């Protein structure tokens, strides 16, 4: 790796009570890459994302141990955790359109950050909706409720909303689970565009999606990082863990 990593994780353990869902993960994510994470259900993928965003603050059962450096700063010593989260956008498996208008959904994060001027907000809303490939569909009804859009539109709305945070890092958690294939393709195109400016962590249940998009991919199983490498190597490379091979070839899931 050339430059210093965007995210650097060492010895990450996550527990919910007695249950340990991540058992010592070490990995680096570089600037401007799409970093794929694949693995079956309950392998710790989502917990990994939650730890990056310090969600343990809102979940008394969640315990996190280990160090996570983001842009070289240890996120557990960051004083302003709210500012930290604004640098990190998150997209959930099921689209969560807030019960606000389309406009207010996208303007939510900028407002939190203290932006008040209507002209600036207008500009952010248009730019982010355009980048999320949704602007043309909703530009005439920005006042309509975001939560009443179709699933695919809502997922693009949540991407626009995450982009409005002006993030360095975008975390996507199985974004295509409730989205039709055509919209999935459109979002994948959006992500390829975004890679030029933002680092993306793509947790996906679709092995082929990781193969299409990710520069490097990590395979999680039962809370452990089994294998990490350039995506193509993971699929075609000669040396690798048998479990990885079985998973990417669809022998278990």
């Amino acid at each position, binding site marked *: 790796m050339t430059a210093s990593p965007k995210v650097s994780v060492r010895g990450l353990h996550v527990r919910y009570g007695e249950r340990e869902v991540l058992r010592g993960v070490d990995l680096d994510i570089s600037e401007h890459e799409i970093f794929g994470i694949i693995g079956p259900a309950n392998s710790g993928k989502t917990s990994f994302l939650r730890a990056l*965003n310090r*969600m343990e*603050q*809102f979940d*008394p059962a969640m315990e996190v141990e280990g160090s996570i450096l983001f842009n070289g700063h240890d996120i557990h010593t960051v004083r302003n955790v*709210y*500012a*930290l*989260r*604004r640098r*990190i*956008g*998150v997209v*959930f498996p*099921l689209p*969560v*359109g*807030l*019960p*606000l208008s389309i406009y207010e959904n996208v303007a*939510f*994060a900028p407002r*939190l*950050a203290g932006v008040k001027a209507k002209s600036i907000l207008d500009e952010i809303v248009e730019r982010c909706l355009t980048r999320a490939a949704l602007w043309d569909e909703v530009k005439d009804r920005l006042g309509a*409720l975001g*939560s*009443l859009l179709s699933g695919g539109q809502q997922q693009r709305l*949540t991407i626009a*909303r*995450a982009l409005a*945070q002006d993030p360095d890092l975008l975390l996507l958690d199985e974004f295509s689970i409730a989205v039709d294939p055509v919209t999935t393709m459109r979002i994948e195109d959006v992500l390829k565009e975004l890679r030029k400016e933002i680092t993306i962590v793509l947790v996906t249940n679709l092995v082929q999606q990781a193969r299409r998009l990710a520069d490097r991919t990590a395979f999680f199983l039962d809370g452990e990082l089994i294998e990490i490498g350039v995506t193509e190597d993971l699929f075609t490379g000669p040396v690798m863990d048998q479990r990885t091979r079985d998973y990417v070839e669809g022998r278990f899931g």
Partner: protein
Amino acid sequence: MFSSTPLDRRNRQVEWLFRAIFFLMTLLLIVPVVRILGVLIYKGGSALSFEFLFTMPKDGMTAGGILPALMGTVWLVAVALLASVPVGVAAAIYLSVYAPDNWLTRVINLAIINLAGVPSIVHALFGVGAFVVFARFGTSILAASLTLAVMTLPVVIVSTRESLQAVPRAFREACWNMGATRWQTIRRVVLPNSISGILTGVILEVSRTAGETAPIMFTGAAFFLPFLPQSIFDQTMAMSLHLFVISTQVPGVPEELPYGVALVLIAMVLTMNATSIAFRVHLRGKKKW
């Protein structure tokens, strides 16, 4: 192929029987309501008039109107609400959003449940001790309203907490992930979507408060006052106590008078309940997810 077996026939009979039992029980519910309303309208309807609602009582409360009692109840309920709603809603927000799960929180929750079970006459005595004597409010609207407020708090807290928790957790998580604090999340997303539910609970509670007698008897409600209350430090007449007084304590009250008072009181309560139901319907229509 589809002919009935003996078991099928038996199942059908049992099904019919239980259906009939449940229906009869349900029918029983509406009998008292219809009967009460019927009697009140029949016997008290003739007492109702503009003068009845908006003039003072005359001839030792055996004639005239009920204005001071009507105004008194409005005062009592309004002041009680002003006291209990901010405290109750704030406490509910704390308990559902901020409170850590420790012994103190559990004690508080237990206290709320127990507060709801305290008989109203005990609340009355507490009110006398705490507000009339200790806080030196004397027997006044303030003391009586605060007593009512304490009594309504548990219901306000519980209904508010339920309304808050009805807002899906996914919304909160989405807000937190965008860097919102707990308070920003509550103010921008949770409260706007639970306010109608909170109001519904509060209004239902108010309607109950309007009819309470025991808690106000010793703390601020008067037997008879020839004037309207001028401030919250005055005593006042109240509908519920007035009804008790003219039906049992004053001789020579014409029969339609107490029935008229009861009818007005129940009309106030039903109007508030109807408002609450309208709110809920409105809320359902505006459901945003």
